[in-house]
């Protein structure tokens, strides 16, 4: 008891530090002053596997997961109303991966994702209105409406996510790690791929280079059990994906991706490994997407029982709520109220995004080249 108290207090400082640099969603009800925050932390919190989490921090993680969940539901609705077009990949069920991972990361760490990117960019702290505006193809979208659901990027948050070609971001993420090592600036590249993406050849080329040159990269595999309609075992000879680095001497760990605290803890270790110069590491997050691959996928290749088992048995938000209630850090009524607030917030976000205009037509010609050459064909900014 005594020891754990001492331990917790030393962790409080760290937690406060992490909180200070951590961005909460643009929810106004989350904003407390630092002073009162610290006071609370001295008394309230929860320890899991020897790691202390302040009540404040737990609430922030919970709220962000719930925010992502409600945001994705809203996006699904907007798609149904044909306000969002093209491909739209939701991450319902995978929120603990997004939030736990970002919680462990430094804001200066790079993050690269596939097209299943809404949750990650929101967890990273990008304004929800800008993300929703991107989904709607509006001028205030994160990339000005040019990318849509699949191409979320926010350089100010070191988020180079949003890559639409399966596996594409893996060598690119390795390149960010190369730049870190080159400059010796201790930034880690968090390079995320799916259980389907992990089979691309370039992934193994990347593992080898990263190990060979001891690059600071954490290769995160979001193993949500399916790549479109193909289950893991129908596409992978070795289904323990954390072992995929063995022949390149890249260590790997498997993480319960439905437990935000475990994600945070294991990711912290992995980041430390990469940051300390020991080279790359693979983190396999065991998770599940509740929805189809994209909005057009009815997901008939899975049984209802299987989906229910994850959805009602292992849901990351329900799980954290239970833990927090048991630890006396919140009540069910509070969570209900919180959910109402967040739903309201998301409605407001969608409204604000929808109120924006489409990009001006002249934007079509922006951002193709940096150094346009005016007097040679094809001429910049014109037809023919």
């Amino acid at each position, binding site marked *: 008891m005594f020891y754990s108290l001492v331990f917790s207090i030393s962790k409080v400082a760290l937690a406060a530090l992490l909180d200070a640099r951590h961005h909460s969603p643009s929810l106004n009800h989350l904003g407390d002053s630092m002073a009162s925050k610290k006071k609370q932390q001295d008394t309230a919190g929860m320890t899991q596997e020897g790691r202390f989490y302040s009540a404040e921090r737990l609430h922030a993680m919970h709220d962000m997961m719930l925010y992502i969940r409600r945001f994705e539901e809203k996006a699904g609705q907007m798609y149904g109303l044909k306000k969002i*077009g*093209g*491909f739209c990949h939701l991450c319902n069920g995978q929120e603990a991966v997004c939030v736990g991972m970002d919680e462990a990361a430094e804001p200066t760490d790079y993050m690269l994702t596939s097209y299943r990117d809404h949750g990650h960019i929101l967890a990273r702290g990008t304004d929800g209105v800008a993300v929703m505006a*991107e989904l709607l*193809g*509006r001028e205030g*979208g994160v990339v000005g*409406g*040019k*990318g*849509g659901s*699949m*191409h979320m990027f926010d350089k100010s948050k070191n988020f180079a996510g949003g*890559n*639409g*070609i*399966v*596996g594409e971001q893996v060598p690119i993420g390795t390149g960010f790690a190369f730049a870190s090592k080159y400059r010796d600036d201790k930034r880690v590249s968090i390079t995320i791929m799916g259980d*389907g*993406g992990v*089979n*691309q*050849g370039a992934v193994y080329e990347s593992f080898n280079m990263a190990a060979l040159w001891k690059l600071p990269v954490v290769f995160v595999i979001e193993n949500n059990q399916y*790549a*479109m*309609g*193909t289950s893991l075992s*129908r*596409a*992978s000879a070795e289904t323990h994906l954390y072992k995929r680095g063995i022949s390149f001497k890249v260590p790997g760990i498997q993480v319960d991706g439905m437990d935000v605290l475990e994600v945070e803890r294991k990711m912290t270790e992995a980041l430390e490994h990469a940051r300390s110069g020991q080279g790359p590491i693979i983190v396999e997050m065991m998770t599940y997407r509740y929805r189809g691959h994209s909005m057009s996928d009815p997901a008939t*290749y899975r049984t209802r029982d299987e989906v229910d088992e994850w959805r009602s048995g292992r849901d990351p938000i329900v799980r954290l709520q239970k833990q927090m209630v048991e630890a006396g850090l919140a009540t069910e009524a509070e969570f209900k109220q919180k959910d109402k607030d967040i739903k309201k917030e998301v409605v407001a976000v969608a409204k604000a995004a929808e109120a924006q205009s*489409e*990009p001006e*037509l002249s*934007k*079509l*010609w922006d951002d*193709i080249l940096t150094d346009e050459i005016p007097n040679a*064909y*094809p001429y910049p900014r014109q*037809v*023919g």
Partner: protein
Amino acid sequence: MAKITYREALNQAMCQEMERDDRVFLMGEEVAEYNGAYKVSQGMLDKFGPRRVIDTPITELGFAGLGVGAAMAGLRPIIEFMTWNFAVLAADQIVNAAAKMKYMTGGQYDCPMVFRGAGGAAARVSSQHSQAFENWYANIPGLKVVMPSNPADAKGLLAASIRDNDTVIFIENEINYGDIGEVPEGEYIIPLGKADIKRVGKDVTLIAHSRMTGYALLAAEELAKQGIDVEVVDPRTIRPLDEATILASVAKTNRAVVIEEGWRFAGIGAEISARIMEKGFDDLDAPVARVTGKDVPMPYAANLEQYALPSVAEIVEAARVVCNRA
């Protein structure tokens, strides 16, 4: 004749050829249990079993190369790319291996296979998923490039491509998959290298392939109302190109517009208009015009996307210009 969709027509061609020849198999992402990402291979796993209809991991370079090897070893693979955007990963096997294998081996090895899938712009899927690549492959000796614009052509051209003893790049169009048209029942083959006149007219020739053929036909209707009688030529096979049909049409109309969804620079329209200039110069009463996609990566926003793509209105306008009616 039955009325079926473009995707059903493709399905019929594959089934017909697989029934006929045990060496033919279909491999690609989601082609078997999911019945195809765009349902082109609907029912084929049930019909032919997992030996011949094979789901792959997401490893385009790997299974494209596997197809090349299988073809060299005597099979006749149909390798499906979910879309041609992803074939960029497999370009090495297509360009450096399949296209050159016969030549490099002094004729010892053939590469009789079809690489097929959806090309061109889909709807609202942004830069990485909306691209026309026919000009890339059309530039390469050793490849044939085929692009059907309607259900009947889809069936006849795919069957011919599967029977062809060379590597065929077969580019479909996602937006056309649901189009319905009359398609001959039973065995149906359209020889490669033959263009088709989709509409007969005397004032101007519109040359358009794939989805743009439909746009050209719509433009022709509009132009008819304005008193311009349009001929629409669909090359169907991009490489090798049936230039005789195109030149004969231009000899009749003396005016031509080439239309393509892809980018103008070094595009298919550049090749076709150069041939018209080289071989039909004396027939021309006006410079050949081109209508193409704008020279930008495809944006997502609805208004920008529409602006980036060629439109029927732009085709009408270009035709009026070459007819001195603008």
